[in-house]
């Protein structure tokens, strides 16, 4: 006998994500799920951003990592609201891990919560955490084919960052091709060129501030 069902496989995760979303919304916080390959510069970008916005925007960070607390330590130099979530073998964060992480953070103190997902461009995309938006991070050191090879993050992201632009003179990277691939997959997504370590993040910082303002108004 066949029982027809037709239901999202990750339904149970998505239900917990909705609980997170309500909690984040009620606290008036804007929440970003930051997704990118290992080494693309997610933590470096957070460090530079926190330094830059100190005293202006209150930013908290949940950082997912397989084992170490190194990223959390790096971020803690600039921010007191940082919680490390060790996923063990898990290659992405799920809504339940974020729910537990949220219990250790005082959302009332924050304007923005950034969740640094586990370095991986594929599976974190499918797991709703309760964020407002997903931001995808690429770097030019990874090659210009990475958007076309990871269409899911391109499709789902509200904003894409192309990091390590300071390395432009040293790597061959066809920006026109990269932009064209992105445009074909998601013509609505914005792409910003940045360098986390050089502090070329003006567009990104402006975007962040705009999100907070539009949240308040």
């Amino acid at each position, binding site marked *: 006998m066949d029982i027809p069902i037709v239901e999202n496989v990750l339904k149970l995760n998505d239900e917990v994500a909705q609980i997170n979303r309500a909690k984040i919304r009620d606290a008036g916080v804007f929440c970003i799920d930051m997704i990118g390959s290992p080494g693309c510069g997610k933590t470096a970008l957070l460090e530079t951003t926190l330094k830059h916005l100190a005293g202006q925007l209150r930013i908290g960070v949940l950082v997912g990592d397989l084992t170490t607390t190194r990223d959390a330590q790096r971020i803690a130099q600039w921010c007191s609201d940082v919680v490390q979530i060790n996923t063990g073998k898990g*290659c992405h964060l799920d809504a339940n891990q974020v729910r537990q992480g949220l219990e250790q953070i005082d959302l009332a103190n924050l304007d923005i919560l950034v969740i640094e997902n586990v370095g991986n461009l594929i599976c974190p995309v499918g797991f709703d955490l309760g964020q407002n938006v997903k931001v995808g991070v690429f770097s030019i050191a990874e090659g210009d084919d990475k958007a076309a090879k990871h269409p899911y993050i391109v499709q789902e992201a509200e904003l894409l960052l192309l990091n390590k632009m300071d390395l432009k003179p040293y790597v061959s990277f066809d920006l026109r091709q990269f932009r064209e691939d992105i445009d074909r997959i998601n013509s609505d997504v914005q792409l910003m060129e940045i360098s986390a370590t050089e502090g070329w993040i003006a567009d990104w910082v402006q975007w962040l501030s705009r999100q907070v303002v539009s949240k308040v108004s």
Partner: protein
Amino acid sequence: MHEFSIATALVDLVKQHCPPGEKVERVSVSAGPMRGIEPSAMQWAWEAAIDETFLEGSELDLKIELWQMRCPACKKIFAAKNMFEPCECGCETTSPVEGNELKLISLTLADPPGPPENTSWTSPLSKTC
């Protein structure tokens, strides 16, 4: 290995839908190509996830859907094996449409050995959920 998380999520979801005491023979799942699910990794993950659970011995029937590409020139939407496949009309700049679904489609239950003794069971699907 997101296949393993998907497999464990699937086991939990099937548990919600399976009538008590029934044996599930097959679990049918449909996945869009955006999801990047590798069929052999998924089969392996399924075997690992159902080990020593009520689903032990059940089979996973996974269907990876084709890409649906939209042609900006002739507006046709066509099924394709690969993303960015050119259109018949010659246009090379096709775009993928959706493709991110991941759905439990149905459960196939094993036939009971004899005539059913208890016919008062109602499907959980008949309740509002």
